[in-house]
């Protein structure tokens, strides 16, 4: 195992900037997740780490050694490609054995056989060893690709969206398997995904990347509870956090937020912005509560009036979108609680000001709440 670090990576393709000063470190044995939308530069970063892409600037450091000039073959990294990149002319056994037979490892046939069968067993594909890879299902091919990574010793694993093309059901079970395998092996891993659930469940630390820049790198708790800007805040959670634009005012009880159309008013704890400044606030749906009837407003909570905008029944829970003026706030409530509610009914929401995130305006408005 080894630590892996990139510093200041830059890469342009013609007029498109793929990487714009990407830096992060992954400690020895750490599972680091690179999370971002498509086109953010995740795969480019991974390939730069592996030496398959030459950066215009920046350094790749593997195990403390600057490795920019080290050929991909000798960096000791194993990569699982999003497209799997299985050798079509070989069968499953041949694909799994390929690294072990290469000039780099050159293991004797008996050892190769033992390792291949061991990995195949772990991943549940030992019945497929004779099958040509062109006749495998997507899930099976993904396992072979993963097996080709796990079969050989490596300083770090690079996994590029390994679960992206799997059916939802298989994805969930593969996620659990990956978690187990990585826990058992303890190998440094850089895992690329656009799915925040994978990131939250698998990673020791997450790096949120957008347009070739790392916006925030931190533990799952950090990026969830204290997102560094509006983009990172909305990257996690479903339903996504709604952001409401408005201004900061001073009221008798301290700073308060007033939405642009005046419909939403919230008291706020002290924030890093001056009264009169334009800001946007966001609340995660799970920090909202639907106020039933004329219940008392508990200590520390505020009530906000609105109308039911949309009701989406999802099994035992219902996603209620409440219109507060022009803003649409989403809250998840048990089905029983919303029985009898229809569109346009008056409802109120309970919000705890301490859970409110306040950002400067804009897609990547910086965090100003504590």
């Amino acid at each position, binding site marked *: 195992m080894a630590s892996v670090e990139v510093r200041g990576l830059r890469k342009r393709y013609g007029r498109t900037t793929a990487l714009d000063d990407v830096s992060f470190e992954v400690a020895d044995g750490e599972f680091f997740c690179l999370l971002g939308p498509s086109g953010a530069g995740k795969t480019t970063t991974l390939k730069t780490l592996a030496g398959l892409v030459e950066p215009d600037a920046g350094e790749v450091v593997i195990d403390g050694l600057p490795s920019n000039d*080290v*050929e991909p073959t000798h960096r000791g990294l194993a990569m699982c490609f999003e497209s799997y990149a299985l050798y079509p002319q070989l069968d499953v056994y041949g694909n799994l054995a390929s690294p072990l037979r290469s000039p780099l490892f050159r293991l004797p046939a008996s050892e190769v056989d033992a390792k291949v069968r*061991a990995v195949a067993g772990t991943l549940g594909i030992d019945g497929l060893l004779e099958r040509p890879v062109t006749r495998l299902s997507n899930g099976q091919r993904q396992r072979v690709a993963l097996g080709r990574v796990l079969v050989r010793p490596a300083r770090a694993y690079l996994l590029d969206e390994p679960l992206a093309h799997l059916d939802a059901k298989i994805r969930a079970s593969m996620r659990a398997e990956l978690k187990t395998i990585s826990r058992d092996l303890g190998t440094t891993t850089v895992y690329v995904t656009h799915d925040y659930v994978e990131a939250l469940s698998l990673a020791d630390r997450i790096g949120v990347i957008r347009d070739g820049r790392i916006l925030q790198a931190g533990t799952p708790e950090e990026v969830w509870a204290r997102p560094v800007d509006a983009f990172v805040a909305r990257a996690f959670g479903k339903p996504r956090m709604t952001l409401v634009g408005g201004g900061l005012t001073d009221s008798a009880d301290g700073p308060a937020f007033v939405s642009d159309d005046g419909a939403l008013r919230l008291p706020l704890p002290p924030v890093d912005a001056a009264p009169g400044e334009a800001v946007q606030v966001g609340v995660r749906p799970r920090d909202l509560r639907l106020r039933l009837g004329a219940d008392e407003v508990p200590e520390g909570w505020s009530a906000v009036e609105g109308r039911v905008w949309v009701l989406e029944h999802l099994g035992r829970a219902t996603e209620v979108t409440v219109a507060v003026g022009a803003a649409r706030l989403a809250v998840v409530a048990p089905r029983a609680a919303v029985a009898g509610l229809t569109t346009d009914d008056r409802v109120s929401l309970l919000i705890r000001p301490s859970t409110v995130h306040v950002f400067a305006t804009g897609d990547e408005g910086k965090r100003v709440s504590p």
Partner: protein
Amino acid sequence: MSVTTPSEVDRAEPPARPPSGPEGRRPTVSRRRRRLRPYILAVPAVLLCVGILYPFFVGVSYTVFNFSAANPNPAFVGLRNFAEITTSAPFWNSVRVTGSFALTATAVETVLGVGVALLLYRGGILGRILERALIVPLMVAPILAAIMWKLLLLPEVGWVRPILEGLGVTGYTGTDSPLWAFLWSVVVDAWIYTPFVAIIALAGLRSLPASPFEAAAVDGAGWWFTFRRLTLPMLWPYVFVAVIFRLMDSLKMFDIIFGLTTGGPGDSTTTLQINAYLESISYARYSRGITYMVVLWAAVYLISMILVGYLRRLQNRTAGEAA
């Protein structure tokens, strides 16, 4: 396919736990050497190009001398060769012959080729059988095709005269009249190269997306409308590639005419390259011959620039529409 549960993983032999990094050396390759890789691979090809360009430049240099068998040690004459040919009737005749040949042959082949492609695209047993034979004329060497047609057109030996007379055509002259020598040359060219256009057009037809046509059918569009508004415009970028190839090739036509008529009768089928051959090889007036070729090459270069530019715009447009 069984999935190992977590407990099975604990009990089973864990996959070879990677030691702290593969104990490998980490040799480095300097950035400069990495950058040189593509150049090293391409060097032989570049050398070959230089080797070919050398005689080309030597040839161009002939144009400003009066090099011929009569003048083995030529004198520099500036642009006199170019001035001479612009006032020489044979030159302009060749230009006329070359231009009309190229345009006529390309037009005939394009229309015929697209037509054959459409017919074959319909499918059916006949079409599928005949499609296998489409490529045959294209594989025949142009000179051999010319000889074959020369024999075919002979009044006594060939089949053309009896077939034409059977269809009621009288006054058969073969290639003896200037007009018919020209026309039969176009026929031979079309005989060889119509399959070229047809094959490319057929591939284009087969790669057209189905949805626009299905939508048109649902909307009740008739055949002619679909053909004019959908098929032709979508097919045009493919056909145009074939047109460029044919046009550029027929401008330098040599083999067919040499085999069929040797430029005759008179000079009614003397294209620029035939003329250059006569000047350089038969009359050994190297400089004059090369001057013809330089003019032709300049024309071909310019025309190809324009056509390829148009093709790029076509391809960008269809790529944009498909996106």
